[in-house]
């Protein structure tokens, strides 16, 4: 048995609050395509970052060709023979393909950019991989699939023995995927070891020789793809524990949100949302699931009023008269829509403002704390201080800058703020992402309370445990289309996993 090209041996890595990699071991042979499968948060990214030299492991060893590899920095990783193709390309859109390849050259060339040499190398690679490469094209003008090909050629310029691709199919159209798999097959035929990280079962099964499944940071299964059935893999990815639903069943009331045939196009014309329709009622939590990049973030942004759709209708039935059609944020907040934003620091709060001022932020509309245009800072401070107590937020008082709070406490404040007025519609996007277990339980409890009080909650989450703990109905977004919503009781985690991990 020859030495594996790559051997990961007992690698562990802990981040504050979470054990991202828990004694992970796997091997990769020369000329083999290995799939790394798992949900968001399973530990794939961390393992990949370790291999790429971006993060260092707390324990364990990594051997390339039998020798322990020094992966201190990305440069060291490259020197050790590991090439990376990231999910978010490191290409510079405004520059040409040739320039981008030149940038990736590890050989420190002379004064001039040696276009000739780059062209020759790229042409040779393109021939072998049977792709087309236009050196003079501006990267911005290429399709995503073509950009990925440039990124791959760039990664191959250092002649790596191992090529790792992170979710390469997430951005590709179906017809482009076949091209990628062919390319990888040819690469493997040359002797390169390929690691394909993905959440998509179809891709793993179409492309890989062997697969390793990660869940909660541990390897829960591995084997040759040929010998495994789809269902086996799904079971490994999401597990089959049944989470007891320990909440009172609720009878859904009237509809608060009604979405019909929603459409949103991307810049290149492909639909990000391809005709989505669903309803959210009072006294109910509807979960929206999907793997990142399938359109669900955009859907939530549209429903929250922060983005305009290209087609379709959205009707709201909140306080006062019904609102027809897509609305702006000010109107929505005025009528009682709360939005717990996905990216807290980018959208929902300002770090250098005080807690009281952050509390005030979303009260400008409905003018609750700013009647006649004048701020009622005293009342804002009062409400904020009360919230600090009620929600057990660790802060000295309402005057400290928000940036002094931990992430968990910040999120609790956002929750307190958004739920304060008992809004009829709550949009919660990844509300427990990145939080510790105690805070997660708290946030989930608050959402259940809001629903019991009569709110309709649209919950965007990638965590199936959370879906089963909170949701009454669940829908899955995949490639811009919606499956469901269906009552949680009438489906299984298996089915939801099935919808999330592949084509219809």
């Amino acid at each position, binding site marked *: 048995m020859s030495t594996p090209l790559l051997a990961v041996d007992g690698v562990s890595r802990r981040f504050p609050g979470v054990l991202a990699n828990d004694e992970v071991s796997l091997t990769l042979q020369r000329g083999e395509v290995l799939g790394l499968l798992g949900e968001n948060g399973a530990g794939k990214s961390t393992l990949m970052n370790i291999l790429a030299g971006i993060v260092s492991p707390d324990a364990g060893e990594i051997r390339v060709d039998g020798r322990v590899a020094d992966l201190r920095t990305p440069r060291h990783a490259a020197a050790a023979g590991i090439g990376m193709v990231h999910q978010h390309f490191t290409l510079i859109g405004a520059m040409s393909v040739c320039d981008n390849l030149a940038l990736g050259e590890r050989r420190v060339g002379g004064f001039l950019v040696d276009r000739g040499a780059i062209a020759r190398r790229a042409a040779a690679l393109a021939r072998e991989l049977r792709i087309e490469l236009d050196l003079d094209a501006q990267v911005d003008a290429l399709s995503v699939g073509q950009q990925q090909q440039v990124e791959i050629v760039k990664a191959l310029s250092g002649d790596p023995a191992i090529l790792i691709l992170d979710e390469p199919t997430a951005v590709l159209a179906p017809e482009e995927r076949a091209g990628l798999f062919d390319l990888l097959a040819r690469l493997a035929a040359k002797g390169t070891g390929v690691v394909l990280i993905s959440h998509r079962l179809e891709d793993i099964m179409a492309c890989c020789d062997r697969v390793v499944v990660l869940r909660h940071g541990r390897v829960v299964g591995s084997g040759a793809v040929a010998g495994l059935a789809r269902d086996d893999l799904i079971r490994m990815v999401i597990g089959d524990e049944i989470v007891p639903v320990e909440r009172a069943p609720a009878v859904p009331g009237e509809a608060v949100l009604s979405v019909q045939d929603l459409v949103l196009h991307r810049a290149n014309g492909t639909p990000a949302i391809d005709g989505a329709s669903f309803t959210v009622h009072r006294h109910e939590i509807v979960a929206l699931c999907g793997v990142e990049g399938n359109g669900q973030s955009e859907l939530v942004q549209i429903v929250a009023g*922060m983005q305009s759709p290209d087609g379709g209708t959205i009707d709201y039935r909140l306080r006062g008269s019904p609102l027809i059609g897509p609305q*702006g*944020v*000010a109107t*929505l*907040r*005025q009528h009682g829509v709360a*939005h717990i*934003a996905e990216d807290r620091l*980018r*959208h*929902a*709060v*300002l770090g*250098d*403002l005080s807690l009281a*001022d952050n509390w*005030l*932020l*979303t009260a*400008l*509309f409905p*003018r609750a704390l*700013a009647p006649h*245009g*004048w*701020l009622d*800072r005293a009342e804002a401070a009062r409400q904020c201080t009360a919230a600090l107590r009620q929600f057990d937020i660790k802060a000295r008082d309402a005057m400290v800058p928000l940036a002094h709070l931990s992430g968990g406490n910040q999120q609790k404040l956002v929750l307190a703020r958004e739920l304060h007025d008992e809004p009829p519609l709550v949009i919660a996007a990844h509300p427990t992402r990145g939080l510790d277990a105690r805070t997660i339980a708290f946030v989930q409890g608050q959402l259940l309370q809001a629903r019991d009080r009569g709110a309709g909650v649209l919950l965007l989450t990638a965590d199936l445990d959370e879906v089963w703990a909170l949701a009454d109905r669940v829908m899955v977004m995949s490639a811009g289309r919606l499956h469901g919503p269906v009552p949680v009781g009438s489906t299984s985690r298996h089915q939801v996993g099935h919808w999330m991990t592949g084509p219809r």
Partner: protein
Amino acid sequence: MSGLALRQGAILALALLVPSLFVMLAGKDPVATWGVLLGYTLGSWDGFSDVLVRAIPLTLLGLGVAVAFRGGIFNIGGEGQLIAGAVLAVAASPLLQGLGWFALPLYLLAGMLGGAAAGGVVGWLRTRYSANEIIVTILMNYVFLQLLTWVIRGPLQEPMGFLPRSFVIGDGLKLGLLDAGSRLHAGLFVAVAAAVVLQVFLTRSAFGFGLDVIGRSAEVARYAGIRPARLVVLGLLLSGALGGLAGAVEIAGVFHRLEDNFAAGLGLSAIAVALMAGLRPALIPFTAILFGIFHVGSGALQRQLSLPFPLVWIVQGVVILAFLAARAVQAQHGRRT
């Protein structure tokens, strides 16, 4: 003494040292120079009253700069907006002749309208065309300067037609002297009132809060339902109006007529005034006095010690840089602790 305090002390020392070096280069004794500067501006009523006179337009213009900068809008066109306001106010003044004590407020209002119009144009260019307001406002300064040059030699010129200056505004429009022995005029009240009003308005109104938010992040503003474009235009209208008011006041209180270069140097100094006050209206009158001291003091240094007047610009530039350095050092310190 902590490392931070030490570094900030060093910055302060350099800020005092650099201008002193130039003073020595000119062959004068720095200590005596500082003595003359402070002695005249703070030690004599002549000097101090002149400092206050200079501080009046600096305050008003500085307030305008502060309003814009708080919203993340780099309005460098204060001087142009000041001129626009002064020109409109003076042009309108003959129409206000018989209106009794309505005349002066209307005159000042005309000034504000002129400045607001100038600011509004910038707001339109920025929101409609995404034009960079920094360069646009600076270029507009030069346009308005030419406008001034023209009106005082053309349509608004004094009846005799000899000198390049406008007619004198009516007596009812002049801001009275507060002290017969100096140039200090009632515009002082306007400046102080404006500072108070703006301090309250910017810190207590939804508009002021919205401005602070868009100054930090347009994305968070949108999340909160605030429309950045609308606030930017309103902010520039207000900023320009304050500049126009400064122009109208300066004419009504000091010059009583339009003249070449009556606003020289106010624009850039006002930016320094606003920055040093941390964009806080309540502090602007004080930093305005500080820069008034530099300005009037430099005049005295030229008269008494033959030190070239441009020294005032060296001082101002160094002061701004020192201020920026001190803030950067503070921020670095904050990041590490």
